[in-house]
Structures are given as C-alpha cells and as structure tokens.
C-alpha cells in the first residue's frame, strides 16, 4: 500500500522550527534566570516549567483561550497575517514549542549556572564587553550540554499529541502530524500505516537520544534522567 509520508515531513518541519524558537527563547530566559537576581525569579521559573507537568488538555485549553480567534492575540494575528493562527501548522509549532522551550530553559539554566565564573570574570578584566564575554567564553563552555538539550527538545517536539490536536486539529495534509496520524490510523483500523509510522518515529527518537547522550558530558547524563 502507498504510505502518505506527509505527517512525518510535517512533524519534522514543525519540530525543527519549534526547536529553533525554543533555543532562542530558552537561552534568553536561562541567561536571565542564571545571571540576575530579581523578585519573583523562582515564581517565573515555576511558571516556565509548568508545561512539563500540566496535562496536555489543560495546556491546550489555556492556549485556545489565549490565541483563539476571539482573543486579543488571535485577532492581532489575523489582522497582521490575514488568517487565523489556530488550526494551522503554525499552531502545531506553538504546541511543540510549549514542550521544548521549558526543557531548554531548565537545561540551559543549569549549564549556565555551572560555569565557573572566574572565566567570565577573567574575560571582563581583559576588557571584553558583555556580549563578547557571552559569545566567546560562556557559550563555548556550555555548548555541549546545550546542544544535548536541543536534541532532546527536538525529540520532545516531534512527539506532541494532546496540545497539537486541540490547537491545530487533525486536518490531513495540513495539520496532521505523525502523532496525530498514528492515532487516526489506529482509529480507522489502518494497522499497516500505524505500524510503519510507529517504527519510523521510534527510530528517529532513538537516534536523537543517542546523539544527545553522545553530546552531554557524563555528569549531564544523570541529570537528563531526572528531568525527563
């Protein structure tokens, strides 16, 4: 039988985009949390971690309220881009982002906080401005753990089901990701399709986890176990 590979490509594309956004957002928040003291810091950390523990339906509900067609954000989006955000593949990116960004924030914060500050201090005494300290000293020192976290975030983005189906729906050829397609195939009694997609997505996830473990230093591996 002919297998429709669209859900797999869509999932990879959505996961890639979500991961890129997650790295940018994650590094930003992690830098903030690791380097500055401010009121409500741990509260912010808790809110940012919440998506890791809340049921997907709860997250989906929140997001529907936040970006639905009647919400302020939803209307602004329609005004700027001329179409709704919900039930498009962009909403699937948002759903994936909700799971990958907290992961990255957690890892990147831990990595940034574990950097021996004497390196950064040394760079400052040598006259380097803050951006140069970050790009030339801090970032290279945390590159491996952050790449490992990025790989994990990508794997996590690939597998979202609950939030995606609430936010992006299940429109074959448009918003149907692998996880949703597998559910659909099982419901429809299409065992061959379900089996194939399950095997492919498992292999991809396994490969990414292997990569993440190769990237993370030994001490990071035990931490990876505790976050997941």
């Amino acid at each position, binding site marked *: 039988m002919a297998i429709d590979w669209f859900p797999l490509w869509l999932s990879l594309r959505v996961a890639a985009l979500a991961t890129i956004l997650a790295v940018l957002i994650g590094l930003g928040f992690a830098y903030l949390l690791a380097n500055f003291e401010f009121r409500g810091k741990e509260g912010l950390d808790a809110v940012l971690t919440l998506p890791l523990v809340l049921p997907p339906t709860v997250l989906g509900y929140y997001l529907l309220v936040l970006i639905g067609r009647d919400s302020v954000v939803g209307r602004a989006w329609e005004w700027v881009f001329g179409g709704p955000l919900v039930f498009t593949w962009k909403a699937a990116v948002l759903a994936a982002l909700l799971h990958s960004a907290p992961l990255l924030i957690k890892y990147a914060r831990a990595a940034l906080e574990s950097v021996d500050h*004497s390196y950064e201090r040394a760079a400052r*005494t040598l*006259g380097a401005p803050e951006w140069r300290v970050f790009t030339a000293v801090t970032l290279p020192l945390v590159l491996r753990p952050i790449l490992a976290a990025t790989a994990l975030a990508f794997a996590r983005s690939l597998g979202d089901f609950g939030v995606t189906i609430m936010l992006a729906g299940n429109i074959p050829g448009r918003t149907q990701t692998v996880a949703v397609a597998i559910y659909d195939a099982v419901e429809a009694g299409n065992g061959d399709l379900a089996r194939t997609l399950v095997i492919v997505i498992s292999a991809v996830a396994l490969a990414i986890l292997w990569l993440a473990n190769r990237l993370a230093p030994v001490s990071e591996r035990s931490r990876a176990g505790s976050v997941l």
Partner: protein
Amino acid sequence: MIDVRIRQHFPARPDSAPFTLDMKFEAGGGVTVLFGPSGAGKTLTLDCIAGFVRPREGRIAIGETVLFDGATGVNLPARDRHCGYVFQNYALFPHRTLRENLDFAAERLPKLERYRRVSEMIERFRLGEIAGRRPHELSGGQKQRCSIARALLAAPRVLLLDEPARGLDQSLRADLYAVLRQVRAEFATPVLLVTHDLDECFELGDQMLVVHQGSVVQSGAPRQVLDQPASEDIARLLGRYNLLPVEIRALDPGRNTSTLRLGETDLHGPYFPGHFKGDRVILYVRPELLTARPRDGRLGANQCPATLERISERPESVRLDFAGGIGVVMPRLDFERYKSSNSKEWVVEFPGVLLRVL
C-alpha cells in the same frame, strides 16, 4: 599609586559568621603583599578592586583614575577598570589554545600589532613551544605563566594575584617567584599579591600589609614587620616567634637595661620605653635567635633551664621544643654535637639585646 578605602558589611548567614570588611591602604609601585590567614578578606579586597564585588561605601582609585566612589556613585564596570587578575585556578579559557587565550586579551588591537604583542609575550614568558596547546595539556607552572602573560597583555593599571603559589610544589614556586621578579623588573605595573605564606612576603614583597578580620592591622617592609610586630595578635599571625608571658622586674633607662622574670629565671634585656616596673607583658623572640645545649653545671646570665619535649628535623636545621612554649631552631651541625647526650634537661640562652616585649 593605588588608594583603597572600602567598607562592606556581610550579615550573619546560616553557614557563616557576620563579617565586616574595612580596608584602608595605599600601595605604590613594586609588589605589595596582602598577608593574612584565610577568611581575613584578602581575596574579597582584590574582587572589590577588580570590580566583581561592590563595596557599600568608600573609594578605590589608581593614580588619577577613580574606579569606585560610594559618595558620588562612580562604579566602573570590571571591563573598564583595566585590572589584570591572575586567578587561583588561572582561569585560562579551556576551549582556546594558549595563543588564542593571549589573543583574547589583545583583541582590540589591530591584527598585525596584536600578533606582534602576543608573540613578544610568548617569547618573554617562554611559552613558544606550547603556544598551540590547550590549558588542560599544560603543567601548573605553564598555566601560571600564561595567565600572568595574558593579564599583562591588556596593559593593566595594576596586576592582582590571588594566592599564586597555592598548590604549586617547591620547584614551581621558585619558577613563579622568578617570573614575578621578571614582571617587577620589566613592567612598570604595580602588583598586589594575596598570600598567607610569610616566606612569599619576603621573597616578593616590597611592602606588606597584614590583614586580620577584614582590616589592615600593620603595614611596612616585610623585614620591618617581622622585626617589630605591632601587637600580640599580629605576632601570632606571623607565627614566627616564641611568645612568652613575662613580668618586668626592673627598668633602667640610664643604662638601657631591664630585667624580665620568666618563670624562675631573670632575663636581662634592653630598656623598654612605655612600660613600667611590674607590667605583665609578652616577650617575643624568634626561635633562631635562641641557643640551647644540654645542661651541665651552673647557669650563666640569661640562661634558663628547660625540659626538652620534642625534636623536629628539618633539612638544614633542627627545631627543639621545650616545656613552657619555648622553641629553638639551631643549625644541624650544632645539634649533632649534643646528640650523644640523651638528657631531657637543657639550658636555653636568650640574646639579651634582641629581647622585645609587647
């Protein structure tokens, strides 16, 4: 000229007692050593000067440049202070080769000029053969030289060294001292060095500041400080004296003499201005200045009977510890002569004119 006057209070925490840093000192050219026990606030002072820690009040200036002034709110960021800092762990960037580490310090120079300056520094500090290696492939001494070279490349106003000899063995220490003497001779940069090692003060220091519980308690040339500690606390910090409680029995300014009662013995010393007959004071005298021999016959002047408790062998000398807290360090050859006598009863002779009291 470095002018430091800073105050900072650290309230008590579950894991530490309250601490007040109250440092006032001036340091000229050459090497100024901050000497004191760990926890005295030495490294904290360096961190305030470098701009890592903000004091609550005070002023830090190097020459005409004010780095920090609590009253006017001046507080230059570390990158604008131009303080070379050599960290205890050297803080060489682990992902960069030695040459790239040096390049980082000269980044703002034009490429050709940078290459010339870095190469010159590599030559000067004998780093040529290892310039392409990463820090983890270097020995402690090489890392140290690289760290000093990197700090100097940025043309700092002052070079700050935090316990540079910690963790180095004897021969590497000698190398380090040679490098720092080279720095003193070849660069005009004043050096502030933190240590708790008195030998290092003598090895390197033009001036030493004794730091105790957050404050400078005495300053001067190392020799001068060692000869005349200003208080019993400082004498204890220096850790190089016999500190013996005595009573002043007689004082004669005319003949410049005094009599001190130590246990059952009268010692004759010089006149001590500012003290009175009957004062109970602390006699301080370095163990190398005392002589000792097994007891035979009568006691002479300034000789005190003492019971030998412990013998510690050293490469060039022997230290004898007697009951009552008297320590004597004598040359090995002298000790050999008395070795055959197994007596515990000895005589310790005090050098009359060299006795000092606190």
